[in-house]
């Protein structure tokens, strides 16, 4: 297995559940956008970063022109009628082997992201999971390793509730993203069971998630 070819960050969606009138990745915590936090964490880990933009793309294009000039922006003008699986497939333009896919509304503890990317270099597909905490979690059935860490996912489901949820991040080949599927995890389902690894992260879908993430970021800072 080779190291990952790059990362694709999905930032095209409306983020309607949060209702802030801007892409979720542009939310600032302590004056730094979620997108900047992801890019800073990813830059030492992957050679290329591609960001998919759609809803209010001008905000993200301008932000990257000012602060992240080496990032490639892929436009999805049909973001209103297409889903994340479609967006990140578009975002993989020019990538053939294996790519890190993640949502732009994630706040990830940098060292756990680094460990995930390192582990992804050794398997064809690596699924990210995290301790269940978001308001609209997709739970996962897992097999745990000897030390209690997660090392395999066998199913995704809304119920029963489990201790772990799908983290909206995975590393795998672009052709896994088949058109027509609604959710990204549905593209992974036919390949289960698959290798998995836990990350310390927050996903921001609702105001409650955002409050949780704001508190959580202080926890990241303390653990560094």
């Amino acid at each position, binding site marked *: 297995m080779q190291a990952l070819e790059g990362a694709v960050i999905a930032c095209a969606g409306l983020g309607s559940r949060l209702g802030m009138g801007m892409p979720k990745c542009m939310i600032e915590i302590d004056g730094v956008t979620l997108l900047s936090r992801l890019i800073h964490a990813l830059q030492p880990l992957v050679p290329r970063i591609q960001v998919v933009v759609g809803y209010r793309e001008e905000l993200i294009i301008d932000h990257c022109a000012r602060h992240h000039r080496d990032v490639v922006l*892929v*436009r999805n003008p049909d973001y209103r009628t297409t889903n994340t699986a479609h967006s990140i497939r578009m975002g993989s333009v020019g*990538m053939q082997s294996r790519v890190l896919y993640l949502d732009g509304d994630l706040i990830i503890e940098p060292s756990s992201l680094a460990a995930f990317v390192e582990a992804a270099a050794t398997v064809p597909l690596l699924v990210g999971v995290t301790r269940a905490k978001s308001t609209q979690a997709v739970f996962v059935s897992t097999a745990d390793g000897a030390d209690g860490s997660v090392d395999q996912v066998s199913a995704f489901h809304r119920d029963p509730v489990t201790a772990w949820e799908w983290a909206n991040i995975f590393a795998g080949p672009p052709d896994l993203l088949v058109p027509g599927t609604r959710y990204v995890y549905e593209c992974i389902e036919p390949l289960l069971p698959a290798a998995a690894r836990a990350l310390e992260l927050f996903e921001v879908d609702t105001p409650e998630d955002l409050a949780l993430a704001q508190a959580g970021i202080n926890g990241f800072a303390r653990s560094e």
Partner: protein
Amino acid sequence: MSGTAFCFDLDGTLTSTEILPCIAAELGIAGEIATLTRLTMDGHVPFEDSMRLRTLILGQVPLVRVHEIIEAVPLSAELQSFVRDNADRCFVVTGNLDVWIAPMVARLGCRAFSSSAVVTPGGVQLHSILAKDDAVRLLRRQGGYERIVAVGDGANDVPMLREADIGVAYGGVHAPAPQTIAVADIVVNDASSLCKLLKAL
């Protein structure tokens, strides 16, 4: 290698400065021509009208002097190296005049589609202005390429980006015009990132 052809705008994409204001400096009107060029690139003045006017004014500068000036216009080192390494499938697609840019095209070592002019004792006379989408169509018909990628920054690049299979709005020199971004598939602001992307396409 893949059967991908690359079409590059010249001024402000391959070159790290606009060429016509450099020629205009010879007549002491660099600022005025730079303003007209900016208005044209931003789509406020039709490219054809602007190019006719600029040719009429700058055509007074002797061709030998124009070539000296153009020799000194800097090219993006990274993009130049990409073009040289892929000269058989890279094309300059520019509204600039063939008689002016010939030395620069020679420096790049690739082929070019451009506006054309004739040199007369009285100066340079515009013959025809390139429609950049025609260049892409011609390559598609005759080139035998599987895919055509176009890279540009200005309003006059819109038809080229729209006609190409993959349109890239490039902001490495200055911010791409909003209407150029609006027809692009990809926006890139950095020469090194652009080269990495193009190599992968």
